[in-house]
């Protein structure tokens, strides 16, 4: 299992701030997680459609589609940041 977190506009759009997800079999990466999310109904497909602007962090470090994900990891999805 991995913990998924969603922030800001993405959290509101998906109506979800946190969930536990079973890892896809094989060598899981951010890309394989996104594939699972994209296959969900409702706003999920649209939110994770190719070309959509979102960022991802694995264990609180900025990551990308190729970043490996292992059991117990914390994976966060969010829009481009706007602090400062």
């Amino acid at each position, binding site marked *: 299992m991995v913990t998924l*977190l969603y*922030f*800001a*506009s993405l959290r509101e759009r998906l109506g979800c701030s946190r969930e536990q997800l079973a890892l896809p079999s094989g060598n899981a990466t951010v890309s394989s997680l996104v594939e699972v999310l994209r296959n969900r109904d409702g706003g999920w497909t649209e939110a994770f459609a190719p070309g959509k*602007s979102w960022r991802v*962090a694995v264990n*609180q*470090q*900025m990551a990308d589609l190729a970043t490996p994900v292992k059991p117990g990891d914390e994976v*966060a999805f*969010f*829009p*481009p*940041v*706007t*602090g*400062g």
Partner: protein
Amino acid sequence: MARVRVQAEDFDVGRELESLTHGRTDVGGLASFIGLVRKTNDGQAIQGMTLEHYPGMTEKALEDICAQAHGRWDLIDTLVIHRVGPLVPGDRIVLVGVASAHRGQAFEACEFIMDYLKTRAPFWKREDTAEGSRWVEARASDDVAAERWKG
């Protein structure tokens, strides 16, 4: 050495900047930046805003940015304070303070920290306008500003 704080409450600018030089005689320049909530954005009046962040990662990201600044310039001390939660126009959002032996290093490092904070630290602003609230879109100009420090 770097200090980072994420907090809901306001900060005392004088006291915080003083903490960067207190009891020291090696600081020759102290550069600072203060970001405030503006009353208009993209042509619309702003009644207030709420800052969301990613607890844990935000602090790590700010510490990492300060560590990078210490690696690139000869700095004595750095401080970043960023507020979260509800804010109104005129409120302070962020303070960056950089102490160095010479001003050039302090100015550059201060600008670097802000440019990286704006593009890498997980904060998100939601503005309240007369027509409702909206999430602030990231600006391409902020990415351009951060890019110039590469290489």
